[in-house]
Structures are given as C-alpha cells and as structure tokens.
C-alpha cells in the first residue's frame, strides 16, 4: 500500500501535469495536494538559484524559474543532500533552446558549479615555499605535488571570469567585453572566499598535469609546447596562493 502511494506521489509531484494521486479522502485534498507540488517547485528552484546566482541574475528570475522547471523534470533530485541538485545544469543549459542567444551561459554555469564544489571542499593546511627549497635535485625529479582539493580548472571561449565578477553582490557591475575572448581559469577557495585566477596556457597545462603526474613529467609536458615556460615561477604561484598541501616522493606515500 505505502509503496504504491509513494510512487504515485513522486510521479505526480515531479510531472508538470495535474496527475491525480491515489488514496486521498478529504474534499479539499486535490487543492491541498497542489500545495506540495508548488512547494517542491519553489524549494528546488530556490536551491538551484543558490548554486547558480549569476545565471539567475543574467537571465532574470522568471526565465530562471522556467528553465529550472524543465531541468527538474529531466533531472529530478537523486540525493538526500540538496547540494548535489545542480550537477547537470550546465550541460542542460548548453542544449536549452530558449537560452541559445546567450552562448556563454553554459560556461558560466560550469564555472558556478566548480565554485560551488570549491566552496564545500575539505579544509587543508598549505605548505610553505621553504619546504621546496630544502629538497635536492634528485628529490625534485621524483616529486609529486598535491594541490588543494578546492582547486578546479576550466577553459572557456568567453571571458566567464569577468562575467562572474561583474555579477557578484560585492562588486560594481562593469561592462564585460565578450571580444576579450577565451580564458583558462583556476578556481579555488581562498580563506572563506572563492577566488578566480586566469592562467596563461603554459601555467594552466602545468597545473592540470600536476593533478595526474609528478613534477618532472608535468614540466616535460608543458615544455614540449612552451619552451619558455618557467616551472619555478609556476610553483611559486601555487605556493603563494596556498594551494600546495603535500609533497611526496615517487610511489612512496611518505610525505616530505
């Protein structure tokens, strides 16, 4: 009895029709069931807007609400933790016909999702740069650099970092020149705030490489295409932004 009842409720709540549910008794129950449907739409739209405030600002509340309605029908929540709700939103926006006049929108959504992940990422103590100075060249050759879990990378054909910054509550909106073109971004949490930092292609390739290989291989990967790349400067950047949380040698789990 209970399983059938819950099945019928969930189906009705998530569909955008007036699908009746089974087993109600009261004379006012149909109108009252609508309260649940409205509350689900309002709560989940609000949660999505909490993760995507810039998108909501860019398209306006009514448009965002309409997009959220379609999104939630296609991607109903599958986690008790409501923070997981917007995971597919950027992919959805990319193919959401009514938004196609704003080609940068999906990338802004990608950026907001990464900022959301960075916001909730684990807290880790950063290492000081002098840890690196103490290493021999032989140790450097086998070094693995572990980066802060809040750090994420993304590339876009649009200056999404400028769009994001212009739409923060704490900043005055300045016009964004879309002609500024592509950006390679590093997103992380700096203290309690989200930080966005544009990187040049060499640095970007280097940081991306550090996430899946050791320091020597990462340098090699970058130098192949950017012979002028200065690994020392790139490492200095990572240390100075407090993004290096561990150093280890080769396959050994032993931390330096």
């Amino acid at each position, binding site marked *: 009895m*209970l399983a059938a*009842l819950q099945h019928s409720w969930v189906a009705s709540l998530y569909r955008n029709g007036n699908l009746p549910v089974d*087993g109600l008794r009261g004379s006012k129950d149909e109108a009252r*069931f609508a309260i*649940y449907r409205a509350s689900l739409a309002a709560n*989940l739209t609000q949660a999505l807007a909490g993760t995507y405030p810039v998108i909501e600002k860019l398209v306006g509340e009514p448009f965002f609400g309409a997009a959220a309605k379609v999104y939630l029908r296609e991607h109903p929540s599958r986690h008790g933790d409501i923070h997981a709700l917007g995971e597919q939103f950027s992919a959805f926006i990319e193919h959401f016909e009514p938004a196609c006049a704003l080609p940068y929108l999906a990338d802004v959504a990608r950026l907001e999702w990464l900022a959301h992940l960075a916001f909730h990422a684990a*807290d880790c103590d950063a290492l000081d740069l002098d840890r690196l100075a103490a290493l021999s060249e032989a140790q450097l050759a086998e070094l693995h650099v572990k980066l802060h879990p*809040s750090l994420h990378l993304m590339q876009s054909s649009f200056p999404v970092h400028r769009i994001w910054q212009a739409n923060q509550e704490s900043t005055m909106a300045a016009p964004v020149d879309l002609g500024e073109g592509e950006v390679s971004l590093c997103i992380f949490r700096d203290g309690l705030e989200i930080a966005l930092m544009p990187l040049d292609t060499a640095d970007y390739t280097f940081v991306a490489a550090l996430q899946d290989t050791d320091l020597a291989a990462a340098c090699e990967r970058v130098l192949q295409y950017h012979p002028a790349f200065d690994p020392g400067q790139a490492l200095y950047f990572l240390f100075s932004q407090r993004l290096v949380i561990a150093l280890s040698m080769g396959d050994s789990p032993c931390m330096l």
Partner: protein
Amino acid sequence: MTAVACKPDATLPARSGIGLRPAHYRDMLARRPPLAFLEVHSENYFGAGGPPHHYLENLRADYPLSLHGVSLSLGSTDPLDHAHLLKLKALAVRYQPELVSDHLCWTSADGLHTHDLLPLPFTEEVIRHVAARIRQVQDVLERRLLVENATGYVEFAASNMSEWAFVRAVVEEADCDLLLDVNNVYVNAINLSFDPLTYIEAMPAERIKEIHLAGFDYDEHADCLVDTHGKPVRTPVWDLYRDTIARIGPRPTLIEWDTDIPPLDTLLGEAARANMILEADSHARRIAA
C-alpha cells in the same frame, strides 16, 4: 535486532534556541547572543569543509547543538540510504551534538528526492515500517534519535487511526524520542478539524526532548494553513505552547525560521518570548509547590 547502545542522555537546557542560518553567520559570531542552544539542518554540513564548517565549529564552542535532519526519509519504502546515514554519523562524531533528530514523514521514493516533508497514512503497517527504520538509524548512529511530528495537509483513505495514536505508537515501538512541533500540531488541528490539546495530551511526555515553534501561512485557494516557517509564531500557537508546557513541563524550545529569513534580532525576540513562557511556568510551579 540488537539493543541500541545509547549514550547517556545528553540534554539541552530547557530554554529557547534558534536555527542557525547562513544569513546570520557573521552576526552570530560578532554578537554571540545568549541562547540555550543552536540547531542546524544536518544536510547543510554534509560538505567536507569551507565556510559552513568554519562558522559552525566556531559557534559550537559556545553553544549546545542540535542536529536536525530533513532527508533521512524515515517513512519511505525505498531502502534506507546508508551513505547518507554514515555522513550524518560522521557529522555527529565531529560535532558531538546534544540531540540528533529527523522527521516522521517521507521525502523520497523510487530513488527520487522531493526535499519536502510528505505525510504518511496512519496504519499499523506504517507504524511497523517506520519504527523498524528508526531502530536501524539508532543502531547505526549508536545514539537515540528524536523524530518530529510532521504536517499533513491531506487525509489518506487508508488511515484507520488518529495522528496522535500513530505518533505515540511509532515512538514507543521504535523506542526513540520525540521532537514535538507545536506549530505542526496546531496546523493539522485546524486543517483537519481536531482539538490540538487532545493530540498534545496523547503524547508520551517523558519522550519529548525538544519543542519546535514556527510561523504558518494561509493558502486561501486550498483553505489550508501552510507550515512555511517564514513568519513569526502566531498567537494561537503561543497559547498552545503555553498549555503544552503547563502539561509536560519546560523543554528546550527552538524558534524555526527557514524562508524569508528576518534579521537576527527578530529571531532573538521570538526566543525571548518563548523564555518568558518557560519562566512563567517555572514560577507557577514553584508557587504551586
């Protein structure tokens, strides 16, 4: 079923507290107002780190804490979500809250989550189902759980007992504690036409470890009070709260406010009002003794 190895009852002071919301983080840190306890929605702290934990850790040092969940889906026919439960357990281990609670309702089915507190039909079958799940949760958490009576705007044809008989039977069969939401009792009493005091009097007083108070709205189209947690506590709910305290004695009391969140001072004013009722009751008891 193994016996729950419960920790000795940690208790909150029988005074008022408020729900901690991000909008008040900075204000709370700067002012640290006198409050008997803070309550947070457990799921809002399921992330590994960042600002939510920064503020909660900081404030936890100064206030007793209650973890209030909204997604255990105790009444669902889906299997219990063990990953979710383990996250809750890790949070409880990390913050050592005095109380851990969730709702006597369901929030998910067929793997889909509604993030809304949905009502259950009141039958023997449902009592056994929910009670068994509450026992499972208490076994995993290794501590007692409080379950909160929910609102329900509709009536199920399948129900064959009163809500108060249902709630009492569930908490007794599960051997768990009760978080009595006085506003929910009032909302259901008006919507479904019963006497709220009959409900209150049927509750097992010794299991009531916390009380919730909140504000409701009125939906004219559905002719229904709606539990929005977006308004001050209404006068008849204060009256029912006073009657409840007179019957069961003082209890830790939370002012819940989740939508249209007002300035911190508004919440502190509501909390002070609850304290006045608790104090007047203590005074009356002293005179009677």
